[in-house]
């Protein structure tokens, strides 16, 4: 009799815990931002995990200068390069490092392409960008490291463990999309590439402000070192690039430091701003926001250019002969083309 | 004791002080009543009631108050 009572109590207690946990989980899923229709940049990081075959030969890491400026579909179509962009909005250099660590949990690429624009930031400047990069990551040592490296003063680790503590106040701005995407993701990129087909010619850029000090911060260098050694340890080639964005301004003094670094460690560094003629970038037609980021046409040109480098200098294999992989890509190409026509319609381009 | 009852009655004519045993705990006497009571007792009985004596146990019933007066007189 006594035993029965005890058992009943334990079962009730367990059941209660399960119900409460389930409710909290549901509410948490509901209030967490979905990044489906509005700020799609927040949905990029998690999309990677949905890839069935993560056997990529080239991984891009970095901020908007990678995910808006290179089209993996072009790399596949023109060179048979199987690539993925693990980019996110304002991805800081320490976040790029942990993004690389996270990626290595699934796949060892031949080449990692890193856009060095984020060298200019030593610390996170915005909590919102931290969340957009980190929330999508799956739990691992890499994510924990990324959180600790990124948190601003106002943030707490527990808010990453239980996002409900961060996003609870969204209850009054919930939309149907929050219900629709509670348990599934909406595809927002093409292998990490964020597509835009419209064009806005580059006009006058804000005047260039001279800086007091052009040297990059110690912490930024530390993490570039970490990225480099991580690649060395895993036999991965590291390719440093600067994407052809006209703004924010890329100072020659900065460029020089990166060049020196690349020379010191025998790395290749491509500044796309110097190659615009070779690539054939036309800032009247190849950018959608006046020179900050490439549109589809620009991204395909950049991809074509970097594809020749990857094939020619790094020997990245052409895998178009791989039937299973080709089939996957076929699906991606269809989705890619569908979105092109959709966006053209949306922006009124024939 | 009779004098004490008279003083108490004058404070709260509607209370039966013979029976009440929780004058303080039931908030029948508030702090103002207590002070009035103390000053009157001081006057009538010529005793000195100190602040340390003003604790609920000493004022919860007419009997307790009477006992307090006796104790002070003895000292």
């Amino acid at each position, binding site marked *: 009799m006594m035993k029965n009572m005890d058992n009943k109590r334990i079962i009730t207690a367990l059941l209660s815990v399960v119900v409460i946990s389930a409710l909290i989980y549901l509410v948490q899923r509901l209030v967490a931002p979905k990044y489906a229709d509005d700020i799609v940049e927040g949905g990029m990081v998690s999309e990677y995990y949905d890839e069935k075959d993560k056997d990529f030969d080239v991984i891009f890491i970095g901020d908007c200068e990678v995910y808006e400026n290179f089209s993996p579909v072009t790399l596949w179509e023109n060179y048979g390069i199987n690539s993925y962009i693990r980019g996110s909005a304002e991805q800081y250099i320490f976040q790029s490092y942990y993004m690389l660590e996270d990626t290595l949990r699934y796949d060892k690429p031949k080449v990692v392409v890193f856009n060095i624009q984020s060298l200019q930031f030593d610390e996170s400047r915005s909590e919102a960008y931290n969340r957009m990069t980190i929330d999508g990551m799956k739990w691992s040592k890499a994510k924990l490291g990324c959180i600790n490296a990124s948190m601003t003063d*106002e943030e*707490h680790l527990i808010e990453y463990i239980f996002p409900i503590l*961060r996003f609870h*106040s969204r*209850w009054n701005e919930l939309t149907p999309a929050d219900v629709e995407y509670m348990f599934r993701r909406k595809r927002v990129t093409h292998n990490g590439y964020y597509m835009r087909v419209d064009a806005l010619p580059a006009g006058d850029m804000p005047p260039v402000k001279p800086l007091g000090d052009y040297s990059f911060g110690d912490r930024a260098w530390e993490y570039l070192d970490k990225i480099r050694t991580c690649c060395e340890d895993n036999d991965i080639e590291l390719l440093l690039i600067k994407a052809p964005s006209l703004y924010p301004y890329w100072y020659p003094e900065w460029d020089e430091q990166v060049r020196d670094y690349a020379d010191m460690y025998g790395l290749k560094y491509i500044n796309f701003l110097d190659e615009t003629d070779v690539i054939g970038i036309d800032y009247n037609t190849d950018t959608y926001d006046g020179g900050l980021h490439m549109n589809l046409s620009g991204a395909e040109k950049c991809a074509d250019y970097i594809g020749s480098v990857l094939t020619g200098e790094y020997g990245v294999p052409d895998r178009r002969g791989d039937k299973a992989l080709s089939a996957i890509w076929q699906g991606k190409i269809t989705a890619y083309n569908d979105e092109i026509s959709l966006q053209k319609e949306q922006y009124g381009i024939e | 004791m009779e004098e004490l009852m008279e003083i108490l009655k004058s404070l709260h004519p509607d209370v039966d002080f013979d029976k009440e045993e929780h004058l303080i705990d039931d908030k029948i006497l*508030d702090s*103002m009543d207590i*002070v009035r009571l103390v000053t009157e007792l001081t006057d009538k009985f010529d005793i000195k009631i100190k602040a340390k004596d003003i604790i609920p146990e000493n004022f919860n019933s007419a009997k307790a108050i009477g006992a307090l007066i006796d104790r002070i007189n003895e*000292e």
Partner: protein
Amino acid sequence: MLFTSYGFIGSVLILFVLYYTIPKRLRPALLLIFSLIIYGMADVRYLIYIGISVVTVWYAALGIEKNNKTIKDYIKQHKTEMSATERKAYKKLKGRKSLLFFLAGLFINLGILAVVKYSGFVVSGIWHILSSGTDGVPKIPDMLVPLGISFYTFQSLGYLIDVYRENIDAEHSLPRYALFITFFPQLVQGPINRYEDLAPTLLTPHDADFNVISRGLQRILWGYFKKLVIADRLLMGVTTLIGDTSLYRGGYVLVMMLFYTLELYADFTGGIDITIGIAETLGISMKENFIRPYLSTSLADYWRRWHISMCSWFRDYVFYPVSTSNASIRLSKWARKHISDSAGGKLPVYLSSFVVWACTGIWHGASLNFLVWGLLNFLVLTISEELSPLYDRFHKRFLFSESFPYHVFMILRTFVLICVLNLFDCFTDVRDTLGLLGSIFTRGSFSSMEKGALLGIGLGVSDYVIAVIALIAVLTVSIIEEKYDSSIRDMIRRRPYVFRFAIWTCLFLATIIFGVYGIGYDSSQFIYNRF
């Protein structure tokens, strides 16, 4: 150290687990260590202040007790040889040593409190009296004001006075006494606990059964609900309104008073719920500090229900000593002779009330407005006391005064009065407060409030909806508890499990979802924690 910081909540969780895994006899030690760590984490220098207070009062109390014992032993031994007058004389002579210990403890602790909290106030006050201008008031360097210094100083002094009065025995063990003063939940915003109330459960190892623990957890949850969902939400509006008194006048002042009064309630009673709740989960029982204060029918009633530990402190350690002092007894006698019997009874009461309310005002803050606030309370209380015969006649004559609507009217009337009095908390300059109150009655005072004006003070429509629903919930609970004179938690406990579970789960989720906390809301400092 804030109740709402993740650090605090996390630390308490760890404490809770440790507390129930270690042997019972070690629990008080754990509490002391934990309390010192958590208090020291707010600022290590705080520990020096509280340390001085603990050691001096502990030592003084021991000295008093030892000396008193020597006196008693001597008298006992020489009972037959001494006459009553000799005994008295001996007591008086030797009692001086006790008095010395007592006064030393009193002045050291009041002195520290006075210096850290009131030196600026005193210096600028003297300056204002001596010079005509307001310019060039000498600046006193900002002092470190230890968290909860007013609370723990008063708690220590209450203990010291009780020992001196021989109402309680002194605590011999320094660690045990230290725990009584530093027990962490009470350091944030009180209550001012009495040794005889707290010591039995705090200092002696004991078991806590499941029901007590879950009651404690429920109370903590209720406290967080009041604090996060209501107080911190209204605070956004209060901050805006108080921040710009040139803009927010007239009708806005009504909103300001209402919001501030509700916010103060939710913040302070919520904080006390958390304090008492934490103690309860550790099996420690603390006295109530509030009994549904906003359901009071008069200001006197209110002060028996609001911040009880402070009020009873002033009653026992200021009001009674002053009113039964030789001076006030003489005054009473004189008044009986020269004015009237009733004046003889009332004069000491009013005189000591005046002293108490001046002290209570100053206790709340080192500025003139708090003094004015205290004296206004005194004025209202005295006037209504003087008018009470009139009320009684009125009540006897008109029977409707027994009716329910009249009861509600009295509650509302008292609430409005409290709202007005509370406004004096908000502004250091009393002229500002009076100006704002006056602005309500000026012509066109409401025309400045356009349609939607309430949405311009930092709260959105959804905030108002949540605040109103939450306040209705709190009011309903208060009315139920008032009616049945029992805790709502005990009433819920008698219901079936599913019902209970649903209630507490909903409250938990509501607090998590609708609470104002986290990024974007960093203004959640307890208003009461430096008092």
